[in-house]
């Protein structure tokens, strides 16, 4: 049995004078991979490359062994791809069902009965089974994102690329979507970018952190979190030694930093702490390449 895979070798992408991605090497296999990074880090560009929406300016991309530069192979990739873009626009006057049905048609579901059943299935997966007849323009932002996710889930594709799928989605639905994605990831490659570290912590076995177009961490979520062990502490005041600190709901300050006082009250680090530490720019912060596992 051939395992589905994606590989990127020395992939770069520029937009005019702006470098969005530089020398990215990745191998992706079935499972959920989270993509973290600040705004402008290159996450969306990377996802668009994986989704064949954008060609790289240099380097090599292979999705399921196919070359997206070759038109016929690109079509082959698209037959096995689900993509939720960051900004999914919708045509005027379409209901949720009509839109997903239209996309299903473009995904070669030509038999009306099978197509309609599939559309109902994916709308049910994202919790929109009761809102299929509602016009998308009349929906909330979170509901629209779920419509965009529904079309990506059509046919349970071997490659699922999701750009901030949970933005604006309520907590109950986020939990439901995690369950759906975890199920799909048993056999599919799921790559999602998000600013919600708790989604990554709850769902992803692997995390990639991008910064200024380069991979500055690539490895298991648990390994990244463990790097923050002993570097997160509570205090009554913001600690000047911390690279980041903020007031918590208890009124105390959570501090994250590499230089820790001996008398500090250490707490269990979260993925967010580890991410902030990685991004924090503390003096002991290791160079990005050396942190790549």
């Amino acid at each position, binding site marked *: 049995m051939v395992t589905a895979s994606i590989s990127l070798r020395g992939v770069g992408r520029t937009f005019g004078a702006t470098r969005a991605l530089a020398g990215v090497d990745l191998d992706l296999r079935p499972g959920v991979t989270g993509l973290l990074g600040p705004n402008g880090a290159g996450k969306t560009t990377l996802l668009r490359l994986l*989704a*064949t*929406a954008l060609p790289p300016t240099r380097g090599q991309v292979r999705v399921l062994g196919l070359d997206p530069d070759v*038109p016929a192979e690109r*079509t*082959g990739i*698209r*037959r096995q*791809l689900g*993509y*939720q*873009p960051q*900004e*999914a*626009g*919708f*045509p*005027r006057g379409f209901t949720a069902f009509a*839109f997903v049905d*239209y*996309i299903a*048609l*473009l*995904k*070669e*579901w*030509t038999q009306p009965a*099978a197509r309609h059943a*599939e559309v109902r*299935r*994916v709308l*049910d*997966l994202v919790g929109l089974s009761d809102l299929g007849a509602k016009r998308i323009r009349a929906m909330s932002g979170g509901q629209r994102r779920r419509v*965009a996710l529904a*079309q990506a889930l*059509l*046919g*349970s594709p071997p490659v699922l690329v999701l750009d901030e799928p949970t933005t604006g989605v309520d907590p109950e639905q986020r939990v*439901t979507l995690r*369950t*759906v994605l975890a*199920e*799909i990831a048993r056999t599919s490659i799921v790559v999602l970018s998000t600013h919600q570290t708790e989604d990554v912590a709850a769902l992803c076995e692997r995390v990639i952190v991008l910064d200024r177009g380069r991979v500055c961490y690539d490895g298991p979520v648990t390994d990244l979190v463990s790097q923050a062990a002993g570097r997160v502490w509570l205090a009554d005041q913001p600690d000047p030694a911390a690279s980041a600190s903020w007031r918590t709901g208890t009124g105390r300050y959570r501090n994250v930093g590499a230089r820790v006082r001996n008398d500090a009250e250490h707490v269990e680090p979260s993925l967010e702490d580890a991410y902030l530490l990685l991004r924090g720019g503390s003096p002991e912060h290791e160079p990005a390449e050396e942190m790549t596992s």
Partner: protein
Amino acid sequence: MTATLAPARPAADADRATFAALAARETRRFAVNPVFLFAVAMTVWVLSTDPGNVTEIDSVNWIPAVFLGGFGMMATFWLTRSMGASEPVVGVTPVTLPARTAALCVVAIVPFACGGLALLRFVQLIPVGDPAYGAFSPSARIAVLVGQIAVPSLGGPLLGVALGRWVRFPGAAFVLFLILFGWGNLVTALSISRPDSTPLVVLRLFAPFSFFTLRGNTAHLTTWRGSPWFFLGWQLALCAIAVLAALLRGAEGRARLRIVRALGVAGAVAVVMLVLAATGGFTHAVTA
């Protein structure tokens, strides 16, 4: 959660079936477009009224061209642009942009069929033997009607698809409609004053629609220069150019090369047809 995660897989070699289904879907969307429905209603209304004492065909036959062709162009432009906001999603499906464009071009069959019906009704109202057709032979009269009623109903919507693929400005189709309408009126007005001028004949025929007869304010009907048959060829070449220009958007590799070559051929054919249309037919305007 009751939904299953094990769907049936679509067949990979479904290109033709997908295209047919997509074309049918777009046709249905076009058929219920309010602009197109208005155009059909206006055409039906005009052609259902008693023509009374029609002394020249040009007082009536521009109406299907304006509504089915002009308004049809605006409707297909809207249809083509309607998925623009969804392009990030639609653009990564297995159906390529040229294939989606081709499906939109198929939509033009609907207004073309309406134009055909309008032509039949027109002939019923004003039989081909009627003096209102001017000095043309019976076959040339048919060519005049096809070129003035049926072909614009096809060409307008095709032009709308091409425009939608290349121009983002939302009012582009309306602006083009005004330009073509204005151009038609301008060259017609110029032709009235100098009907035998060859450059003016070329200018008059250098349009997707042209008059071949005019009564003006006199009691006499003037049949203008120009060959209706070659004008039909010119119009069909314009239709081909519209389709090819639309298909060019997003075409890659060999397909793009073929389309560019075909565009060259269609352009050459159009020029030849225009020259033949301007030099053919009567050598001077015939007034009866």
